[in-house]
């Protein structure tokens, strides 16, 4: 084995276990974090119910997928859930708007404190959590169908002759592609359309925006619609990539919050960066680099331990650790969001 093959092997190894998983997980987090950050920018509160909105959206998608499958409708190569997405997004939007109308709008009119909103969102979280559990139960559901792998590890080994395989799941590619498309659309919307500009103005300075004749209710409504779309996308992509389990989504809000804050809360671009930062550090801090280093250094220096900073169980803890560090060192986040 010469050195260049070793290099390639190391590269493939790291892409397979760190790069690709982080990219897709990061995209899921980014989509979620953009929703959180938008709600924060416009409505000015941290929405604890965001994870449950994701969970609800995914649940609807699962149900519609089942229904489609029972009708014999599939998408062949792609997962059927993609076909179910538009309808489930619409249902989630309706749900979110109902919640806003019946719950949050009251406090908006009364100009309540941010804390009241948070407590309210906790209440919404409970209700949605219960609703999802009652409708679909608490079991783990795998609703992915279609082609699972684009590249299989074995094929890759044969094709390239390397000793490390590279597996590329279709869901991972789908996640990244959908994330890119939706982020581009979002930024086009925020930068170029009237409503998008109104939203940015509103987030920047509420009073000034109101004086310029921007309708707050409309801005809020659009924010919720975007949030619902992104939350459903993030939830479904996460569910496709791993599996759908109602309890998982609650745990997911913490890395999402971490991503939003790390990037600078209120800044959509920051949320995306934050998503990837959190995902990469979670996966890299818990990845055992032993094999990677063996490929790169001469065999005399090969490490004996796993060269793993933290055991995999601490995956979630890593994101909070980053969160705490960012709060201490640079409370505005990477992109200088709102100072809290």
């Amino acid at each position, binding site marked *: 084995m010469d050195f260049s093959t070793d290099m390639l092997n190391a590269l493939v190894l790291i892409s397979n276990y760190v790069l690709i998983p982080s990219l897709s997980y990061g995209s899921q987090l980014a989509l979620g974090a953009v929703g959180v950050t938008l709600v924060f920018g416009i409505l000015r509160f941290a929405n604890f119910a965001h994870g449950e909105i994701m969970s609800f959206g995914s649940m609807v998608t699962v149900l519609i997928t089942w229904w489609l499958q029972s009708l014999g409708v599939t998408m062949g190569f792609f997962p059927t859930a993609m076909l179910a997405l538009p309808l489930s997004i619409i249902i989630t939007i309706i749900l979110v708007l109902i919640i806003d109308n019946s719950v949050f709008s009251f406090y908006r009119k009364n100009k309540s404190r941010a804390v009241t909103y948070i407590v309210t969102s906790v209440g919404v979280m409970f*209700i949605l959590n219960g609703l999802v559990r009652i409708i679909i139960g608490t079991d783990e559901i795998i609703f992915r169908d279609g082609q699972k792998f684009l590249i299989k590890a074995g094929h890759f080994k044969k094709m390239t002759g390397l000793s490390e395989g590279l597996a590329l799941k279709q869901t991972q590619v789908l996640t990244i592609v959908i994330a890119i498309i939706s982020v581009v659309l979002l930024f086009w919307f925020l930068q170029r359309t009237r409503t998008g500009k109104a939203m940015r103005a509103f987030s920047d300075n509420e009073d000034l925006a109101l004086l310029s004749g921007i309708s707050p209710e409309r801005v809020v409504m659009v924010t919720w619609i975007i949030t619902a779309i992104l939350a459903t996308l993030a939830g479904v992509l996460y569910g496709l990539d791993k599996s759908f389990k109602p309890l998982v989504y609650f745990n997911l809000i913490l890395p999402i919050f971490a991503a939003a804050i790390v990037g600078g809360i209120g800044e959509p671009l920051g949320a995306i960066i934050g998503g990837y930062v959190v995902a990469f550090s979670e996966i890299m801090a818990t990845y055992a680099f032993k094999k990677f280093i063996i490929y790169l250094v001469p065999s005399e220096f090969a490490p004996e331990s796993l060269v793993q900073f933290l055991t995999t169980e601490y995956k979630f803890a890593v994101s909070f650790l980053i969160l705490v560090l960012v709060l201490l060192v640079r409370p505005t986040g990477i992109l200088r969001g709102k100072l809290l």
Partner: protein
Amino acid sequence: MLAVVGFGQSWNVALAILNLCLISSVMSMGLNIQWGYAGLFNAGVMASTAIGGLTAVLISHMPVSKAWSVGGTSLFALIVFLILTLSVVFFIFKIFKRGRKRSFSIALVILIGYVFMRFYYDQATFAIEQVEPAKTGFLGGLGLPIIFSWAAGGFAAAGLAWIIGRISLGLRSDYFAIATLGISEIMISILKNEDWLSRGVKNVTGLSRPVPYEVDLLQSEWFINMVTWLYGVTDGEIVKTDVLREEMQLSAGVIVKLCYSGLFLIVVLTILIFAVRALNSPWGRMMRAIRDNETAASAMGKDVTSRHRQVFIIGSAVIGIAGAMLTTLDGQFTPGSYIPLRFTFLIWIMVILGGSGNNLGAIIGAFITWFVWIEAEPASLWLVENIDFFFTTNSPLILHLKEVAPHMRMILMGLMLLLVLRFMPKGILPEKSSS
């Protein structure tokens, strides 16, 4: 309410609910000190509860001497290196000026320290976890009576709160909530994974009790006499022995639970007295002043951050006591059971329902919330069984509903919280405005 359950289901169930109501009251009083007095949105209630529970284990479990002997040296080395690293970091922090040089050297020292500590840590944990992994595999505790752990749990939680407070106080409420929630999750994942400390997800069971065991009761003479006297003769006839034995077993459960209730009641009343007195003291007035207007209070010369830290520590200590009590009541420590919905947000519902800032309100809120939380399941099962009338029995829908009936409590809790916030924002017992 509890009496209804007592007659309807059984006294054992009613007392079990009562005991948890009492523990929840302590928790909600603790949170009320933080939220109601000072307006701190602490979403890390769970961390204090868990560390209280951990303390209960560490105080009451017998020490595992073998684990100490195999892992002790490495553990000692670990601590030496920890102290060494920290002191070097502190030293660098003091002598160098702020800048790239300082950050770089601190990072380097931490990295070197980490490598050494990791080496000894791996050695120690490996050795400790090898000691009878099915039974112990951890360092064990001090072997003291578990009741001491209630106080110790309070202190431990206070210590933890000091650290959490250092990190997250001074942030705006949203951030503070997220930071505390995050830190509490870190706490739980440490408890779940550090097997040498408290066996992680393998749980510590069979902790000693401060009250008699049912088995011992069944053999003690006074107890047998009492039950015979109570149930021995019904309608002038002597009851058969097997019926009597059943009654005895039930009564043993009741007595044990009553003992717990008594102990818990003492704690609840003590804390209540202290909390009420504190609230009505000048200190309490100052706290409320800070809560209502931080700017004005700090303009009056009050140190807002350090007051916040103080009240955060006190409240967490109270919650820590409750955590130790909970582990005592369960007789086991199960890190996997700590989830934020149950141990953080449910306590929040209790406080808000009862009336933020009112201690009695916190207790009432705890009772109502816990009661609904437990009884929601049988109630919704009953409901499902009674709408059988409309559907064919055993239709898939009914079966599904029966399966998911326990989750009805989530919706009920959320609804309760939202309705209270909307129509009764001050809770059942509003804070008294004393002026």
